[in-house]
């Protein structure tokens, strides 16, 4: 069901209407730029509406900690300004042995250096935060009360609404088919609903990045592949039953929390791919139930309402690709979020808007350099779960 008309021309065109594309358009429009988002299906339909809702600063390297610190500031600010659910209910990493504790102590030191109040707590303190936890095997926990979660639906819809108020155009049910390039300069895009003249293109398609790069004729090696990850939600239970995002690497690389609607949402490290298939599997339902009920035994008696799948658009080092591609004028990529697109989006929007409008940014965009793969300078793997 096509909605709005494709404009004839737009200074900047963002391909992909997930949270990343929408917040980039929001930020650019807010800065007075003429911007259009082209989305193949509906806003959020790719990976955003399928995500696990978590927003954390507990990463294992300086760049991601800084990026996420800025993102959380923006999540807080915009959730108040635009009135959508974002709660700083924390992330609780359950740790089961000395090796895990050692690794997390190192992470905590990095996080503390940037003013993030993460600390190591006892199993008993963890149980005070989530009384339903089975802590019989837990030796410690890494706890940051300023991490949180947000509704992907309400947040993305609100950013889309306000982006439009700032003059951005959001065109749904429209698929980009080809680039119009003359002498290395982008002149426009051919879509399923006609041609748009444009000079600057931002590829925010995450799982579909390689297809858009191929259309653009990009030869730079940018390895982003889609992997199928699944999630589950249970029946709604009393609010406050599982406030933070609970993480357990021991039990299936699991993450779980309670949504604003009351259901327990989450996933485990059950990955398939690279693939564009998003069929939920029976095996996942078994795996996630096996692990979740070991972390919180009371979940045994809760009803599973449904499972679904989404993409982790992964790079070899699980860090995204953000920046300008020099072989085409003007082409930017903000993709390959490896499961962190939703949480990072607000800082990424600022980063990309800085790069497009000023050519530089104070945020650590260098860490996400698109040319690092070509140069063989992979980053340390970003801490990832699910």
């Amino acid at each position, binding site marked *: 069901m096509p909605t709005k008309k494709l404009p004839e021309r737009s200074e900047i065109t963002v391909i992909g209407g997930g949270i990343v594309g929408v917040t980039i358009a929001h930020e650019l429009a807010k800065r007075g730029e003429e911007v259009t988002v082209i989305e193949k299906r509906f806003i959020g339909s790719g990976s955003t509406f399928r995500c696990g809702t978590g927003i954390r600063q507990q990463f294992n390297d300086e760049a991601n900690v800084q990026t996420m610190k800025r993102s959380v500031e923006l999540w807080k600010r915009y959730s108040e300004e635009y009135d959508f659910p974002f709660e700083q209910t924390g992330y609780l990493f359950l740790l089961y042995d000395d090796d895990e504790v050692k690794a997390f102590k190192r992470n905590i030191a990095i996080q503390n250096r940037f003013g993030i109040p993460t600390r190591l707590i006892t199993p008993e303190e963890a149980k005070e935060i989530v009384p339903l936890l089975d802590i019989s095997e837990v030796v410690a926990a890494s706890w940051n009360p300023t991490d949180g979660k947000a509704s992907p639906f309400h947040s993305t819809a609100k950013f889309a609404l306000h982006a439009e108020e700032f003059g951005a155009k959001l065109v749904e049910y429209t698929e980009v088919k080809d680039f119009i390039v003359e002498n290395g300069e982008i002149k426009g895009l051919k879509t399923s609903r006609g041609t748009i003249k444009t000079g600057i293109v931002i590829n925010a398609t995450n799982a579909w990045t390689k297809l858009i790069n191929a259309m653009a004729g990009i030869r730079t090696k940018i390895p982003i592949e889609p992997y199928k990850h699944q999630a589950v939600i249970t029946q709604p*239970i009393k609010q406050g039953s599982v406030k933070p995002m609970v993480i357990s690497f021991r039990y299936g690389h699991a993450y779980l929390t309670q949504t604003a609607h009351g259901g327990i949402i989450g996933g485990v490290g059950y990955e398939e791919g690279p693939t564009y298939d998003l069929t939920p599997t029976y095996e996942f339902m078994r795996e996630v139930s096996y692990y979740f009920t070991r972390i919180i035994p009371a979940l045994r008696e809760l009803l599973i309402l449904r*499972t679904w799948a989404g993409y982790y658009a992964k790079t070899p080092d699980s860090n995204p690709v953000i920046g300008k591609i020099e072989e085409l004028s003007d082409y930017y990529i903000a993709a390959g979020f490896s499961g962190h697109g939703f949480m990072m989006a607000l800082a990424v929007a600022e980063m990309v808007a800085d790069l497009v409008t000023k050519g530089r940014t104070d945020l650590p965009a260098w860490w996400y350099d698109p040319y690092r793969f070509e140069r063989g300078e992979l980053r340390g793997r970003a801490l990832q779960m699910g």
Partner: protein
Amino acid sequence: MRPLDLTEKNPSKKVTIYFDGKPYEAYEGEKFPVAMLANGLYWLTTSTEGRRRGAFTFGPVPVKVNGVKNINGRKLVVKDSMRVERQRYDEFQEQIEIDEGKPILRYVVDVAVIGAGPAGLGAVEEIGGKLTVALIEERSWLGGDMWLKGVEQEGFGNPREAIEKLTNFPKNVRVFLKTTTLGVFDKGEYFLVPAVRNDQLIEFMAKRVVLATGAVDSIMLFENNDWPGVFRRSDALEVINVWNVAPGKRVAVTGAFPEEITPELDRWGIEYVVVPNPRRVEGEDRIERLIDENGNVYEVDAVIMADGRIPDINPITQAGGKVYFKRGYYRPVLDANHRIRDGIFVAGSAVSIKPHYANYLEGKLVGAYILREFGLEAEPCIYEEKLRDYEPVARPISKLPLDGFSSEDVQICGCGVTLKKVDDVVKSGITDLQIIKRLTHLAMGFCQGRFCLFNGALLVSQRSGTPMDRLDIPVARPPIKNVKMKVVAGRD
């Protein structure tokens, strides 16, 4: 006899159960909501928003049984001295007993037939004896919706006698009653059909699958349409003809298809009034009156929604099928052999709404197609020919009196989604059903849209002017019926 008993019950089965501390007469083996209804008690549970709910309309029915919370009251069977209490939807058992769990049962068959209504029974009759079959039925009886009927059915005559004839199965047919299918998964070599019976996981591995999963009653929108005492047609039929209990002393029949229930009410001498256009029901913990759109007031204690049936598209979309809109409802896109894709066949009211006998013939038809795929002799053309006599029922697309309702009192979905909540989003300019679903939680709860998605689509279509066939309809995800996490958590 209890106030709403239609017949004398077996005195040797008589027991006492306690509901919120008070004793009630009940019968061993009876369904708990039926026992309470017979005693004139409709309100069994309370939604998270604090709305009183019974067991015969939409929404889950969690109750506390012998001190344990979050037990499905709809399926609860009466036992002597059982103590049941009301609870709110969001209450759950925090301290639990961890049992060993039951081992997984596995069956390998040629064909898994899901649903034992006339279509499923027709398919089994056609292929039984020639191929191995697992017949999987969620309810406790065979014959589906037809088993609920007391009056003669076209083509069949007496419905119960016809079903008894159809259920004399050959040896290679295994029947699984009270077994809930969770979905259909393609494993390449076979289809995996996981199901649950009495908290035990069963895995069926089948070369072909028949979805004879039937239709659901349309939920009507009016103020307090979730009130205790509002009945779906199928639930009213079940309490009358399976349990011999009346829905009320004086009932109102509403909707476009009252004749789907009135002959049964006549048969038992249950007093009723037909009210085609209800606007509101009122009462305390049960219905006391119904008010129609013209302001007429009817003193009734039960309301039956008989507004036609629509195919349950959830099993279809979960299994990878597409749907289209025709004759007033969404239905599966089928190939020339009645398949949604290689290996998965659909028959009966899951395809289109038509008489029981036509559904049975359609079951026979897909049975014949399956025999042919296995290289066995079959003549599907016989059934193709006979089915030409049956034009599927067209369901009128009702125009919702959207602005005539106090829409915060109209429940579009049993999970606390009011008509107002959805309508406000639509009126704000968002007309994509996919987005509306996620902003309002419509079709994201216990029934996964089985009872509410259609009305959501209707609302969007009516407000936006987008025809029903142009809406982007969300697909169902596994499990297609809710399952307790512990049932699938086991490892072998």
